């Protein structure tokens, strides 16, 4: 399924050159700027009017003010402090209001990270690689993004809790236990998949962990259901309750 073809990595420098989900795509709405964080680095996420999502270092190179308090005009981001304008895509400064006649130097550019959208999430790679993320599209399955859960626990603790047992029902309106299993996907410590099944009917949740910092993690979830006719809203509520319970376990671990 989501097979995020990435190698296993620790939460240190080795984790820098890989892709992580940092927000649900639908949260990055037009003409707004969303603040995200990955491995202790603040990120300003903003969608331009063509739909492109920019993932920028969350500070203006001029005086260090967070770009996430700036303005998204649809083509540029304007810094709140001195009105410097930065172009979508390149991050190049296009205009300095204090010096309207002066062309901004090429060095006046915001720090950019690699960004891509896939499976309903915005993905970021802090090393700004030229290559887009290698995300294999699942064949023929209906994917649903679950409500992401912020957890005050390290990703390794969250992964361990998920592996020990993320309990969920195939159909939450029918109280019946089904066999289930949970495992890391391709040995990646940030991706855990849990599966329940009953005959032909099965449901899997792929958890994508976003290491916000050494101590905090966002749990993103992708749900697939096969041959399951349960009420969608009931299923979403069920997972929200189960993930919240898992957060409580991870935070008290």
């Amino acid at each position, binding site marked *: 399924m989501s097979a995020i073809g990435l190698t296993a990595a620790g939460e240190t420098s080795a984790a820098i050159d890989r892709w992580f989900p940092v927000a649900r795509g639908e949260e990055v709405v037009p003409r707004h700027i969303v603040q995200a964080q990955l491995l202790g680095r603040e990120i300003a996420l903003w969608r331009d009017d063509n739909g492109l999502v920019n993932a920028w270092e969350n500070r203006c*190179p001029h005086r260090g003010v967070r770009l996430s308090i700036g303005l998204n005009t649809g083509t540029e981001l304007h810094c709140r402090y*001195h009105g410097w304008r930065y172009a979508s895509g390149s991050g190049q400064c296009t205009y300095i209001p204090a010096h*309207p006649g002066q062309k901004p130097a090429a060095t006046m550019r915001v720090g950019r990270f690699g960004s891509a959208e896939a499976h309903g999430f915005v993905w970021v790679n802090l090393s700004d690689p030229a290559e887009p993320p290698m995300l294999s599209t699942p064949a023929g399955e209906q994917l649903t993004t679950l409500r992401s859960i912020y957890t005050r626990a390290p990703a390794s603790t969250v992964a361990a809790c998920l592996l020990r047992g993320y309990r969920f029902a195939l159909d939450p309106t029918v109280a019946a236990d089904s066999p289930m299993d949970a495992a890391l996907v391709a040995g990646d410590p940030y991706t855990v998949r849990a599966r329940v099944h009953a005959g032909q009917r099965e449901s899997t949740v792929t958890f994508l962990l976003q290491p916000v910092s050494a101590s905090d993690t966002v749990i993103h979830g992708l749900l697939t259901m096969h041959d399951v006719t349960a009420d969608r809203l009931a299923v979403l509520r069920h997972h929200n309750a189960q993930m919240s319970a898992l957060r409580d376990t991870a935070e008290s671990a």
Partner: protein
Amino acid sequence: MRPRAESLLWDDWHAVAEFEQLSRPGRFLTTLLDVPLTLERDPKTDSVLAHAGDEPIASLRLKYGFVWVCLGDPARDIVNFPECDDPDRLLGTAGSVRVAVSGLRAVENFLDLSHLSFVHAGFLGEEPFTEVKSYSVESSPQGGVIAKGCRVYQPKASPVAREGFDVDYTYAVLRPYIVVLYKANPVEPQRRDMIALFVQPVSEESCVAHLLTCYLRHGVEAAAVRRFQQFIFGQDRPILENQLPKRLPLTAGREIPVRADVASAAYRRWLAEAGVRYGAIPAA
């Protein structure tokens, strides 16, 4: 007491409270250079007692409506402003605001011309009048930086301004954490109003900004001045608290200055030369 900062700061005076804030009974708690202070007004003698922990503070004075403290051995006097003795001026404190950023960032913001059209739009500046024309910067013989000939179009330059006009500014950084500005008075353009910012370094990454205003009277009311300055500073505060890093980088290349920033560039250079480290990210 063991000095918690370089002598330039430790052996200097810092405003730590408005005197008026001490009028209520009870203790007033604050912090200066990471040292917790307790201030108390004696209702019988009307004097102020100050302690750093259990130690009484010997160097304590009242000036310009503020309580000033020196934690070390005073190497020089409290800053002095001859304008404040003019009989036709209204002297006032405009509040003390806690800001979660290095006080050096607060001083630099006070010196900054090009933010006026954005952060104080409709008052101290306005688009499209955003251009910052050349102004001169010189070092002061007593240490510090003076910026002269700064001209800015201001829609409402002061509590009594009724229409916009080009305002002439002079800035002077007097101490690492003290800066003053002089701007043309809207009624008597050949004379200048004065606003001083006394920044109390609470820690390296937080401060209290104390404002002193010294306006020519001309119908100015103390309450209106106070309200105006608090409104203006209220616009600066969220900007300051969103600066990263919270300490002021003194290394060239960490942040990109332009011509409009020659005053702040000179301020940073002077801080580096004077060896100021508290609240700064020193040059390597």
